[in-house]
């Protein structure tokens, strides 16, 4: 059995009971948050859930190739979801965090642009290396024609592979994924930062200027943690590799939405409980 064939085939089917349990869990967590911190905390938690869902949904667009892509046997960027998400999403998050003082809209857009830019550069350089370094053309194995350009793929696909390189639709998918994930990560960071800025001065009996390093650093590390949790859960959903928005695996996104929402709510609740308890 080859490494490619040994990939676990986590079914594409939905599990309605588990989805219902997930939704109930989400409502319970939101309820706990409403109980401990009805105003600020609940609004922040909802923001974090939205951010987490954006990350989970965005990661589906990113063409993750994994080890087969590194050998030119599958399309996509030749690394795992965790690495790609950390690269693109955190680039966006840092960009957005830098712009945090300019207001939430500017910050989220900056984060989205940062994430998208990072993915665009990554996809560009990946194709450079594929084409000029490894000498392989870009061809999708999942569709006959590129959904955006309409270019035929079959002639360029080598026999025995699932396609190779980074077709145009995957490139566009990568940029969209970077935009969504970068924006989502920044949104989580901003929400936690708002809560901490409002509550830490009274909790630690210090001025806002004094606690800013704590607030920024704690919000940052929470955002990184939630980002990675969401990215890895999405990676589990697509069992490690996906070609982009045209891949049949993309249809599994509703599962990731539920999982990301519950996971973000859980982690966000912990972040809020630190300051309200």
């Amino acid at each position: 059995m080859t490494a490619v064939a040994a990939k676990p085939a986590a079914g594409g089917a939905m599990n309605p009971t588990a989805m219902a349990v997930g939704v109930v869990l989400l409502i319970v967590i939101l309820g706990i948050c409403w109980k401990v911190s009805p105003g600020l905390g609940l609004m922040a938690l909802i923001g974090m859930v939205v951010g987490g869902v954006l990350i989970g949904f965005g990661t589906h667009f990113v063409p993750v190739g994994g080890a087969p892509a590194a050998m030119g046997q599958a399309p996509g960027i030749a690394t795992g979801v965790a690495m790609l998400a950390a690269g693109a999403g955190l680039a966006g998050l840092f960009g957005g965090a830098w712009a945090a003082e300019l207001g939430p809209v500017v910050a989220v857009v900056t984060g989205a642009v940062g994430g998208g830019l990072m993915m665009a550069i990554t996809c560009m350089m990946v194709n450079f290396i594929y084409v000029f370094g490894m000498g392989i053309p870009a061809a999708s194995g999942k569709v006959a024609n590129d959904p955006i350009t309409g270019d035929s793929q079959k002639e360029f696909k080598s026999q025995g592979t699932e396609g190779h390189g980074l077709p145009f639709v995957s490139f566009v998918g990568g940029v969209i994924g970077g935009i969504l994930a970068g924006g989502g990560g920044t949104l989580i960071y901003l929400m936690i930062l708002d809560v901490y800025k409002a509550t830490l001065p009274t909790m630690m009996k210090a001025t806002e200027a004094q606690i800013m390093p704590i607030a920024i650093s704690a919000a940052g590390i929470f955002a990184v943690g939630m980002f990675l949790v969401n990215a890895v859960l999405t990676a589990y959903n697509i069992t490690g590799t996906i070609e982009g928005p045209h891949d049949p695996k993309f249809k599994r996104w509703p599962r990731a939405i539920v999982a990301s929402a519950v996971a973000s709510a859980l982690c966000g609740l912990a972040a809020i409980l630190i300051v309200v308890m």
Partner: protein
Amino acid sequence: MTVKIEVIAGGIPHPKIMVAGILASLVCLYLSYLNVVTNTEMFSFFGGLAIVAALIWGSNTIKVLCSYGIGTGVPSAGMIAFGSGVIAMLLATKFGIAAPIVALVLAAVVGLILGYLSNEVLNMKIPAMIQSLTELAVVGAFTLMGFAVLMTGGFTFATLTAGSVTFHGMSVPSYQVSFIGGCLIATAFMLGALAIQHPFNACLGPGWTQDRMLMLAAECGFLSMIVAAIMSFALIPRGAALISLVIALVGWGYTYMQYIGFSKRDAASWLDAKPIPDVEGQ
């Protein structure tokens, strides 16, 4: 349906390593409380030993989980371990002396829910998934708490956020010179996340042996401890940081030599393997 792609038996059974890992980490974390009792920071190195114990346990857990071929690569397991661990650990620091126990419980709850989400909602259907993610979250929380103890001498929220800078001979409180305020926690996060995923990632394959992987885990732990001990010079007295650094260097040297020994034992060339013999008649 999942294919278990790598079935390697032998070695110490996983439950034994798990119990030993939990006990050793908890005991080491609590031994660092001697800092408070004796009013010094000489016992901060126990945090480093907790890191090593937790990482040894964690790398074996990753082995159990990734034997099923989860398809996402071994590093992702390390990332989710620390992503969920950091959240439980930070909340647990609010509970004072009970922090390590609370970290254990909180991380287990977070890991359990994440395990349920991946196994049922995301339909992974891997038998070891829920238990492994629960364990990994606890490992992540313990490792980060170990780093916190190593760098600051304590595991309470107050210790992790308060620091002081000496300005013209006067000690001025500053939140910026602290484990969280200085964002040393981010470095600790990455040091731990790399150290937990590396051992199995480096040792997997048909020649996998448990003692070699666990020794590499200990080596990675001590290597991270060296870096953390150097960073601890900024936050704890020089003598205490020096003790941590010396222990880390000695531990790293010993485990590294052991690991090289195991690698030579398992290496094909060292076993003096002969080339594949020619088939008769060719």
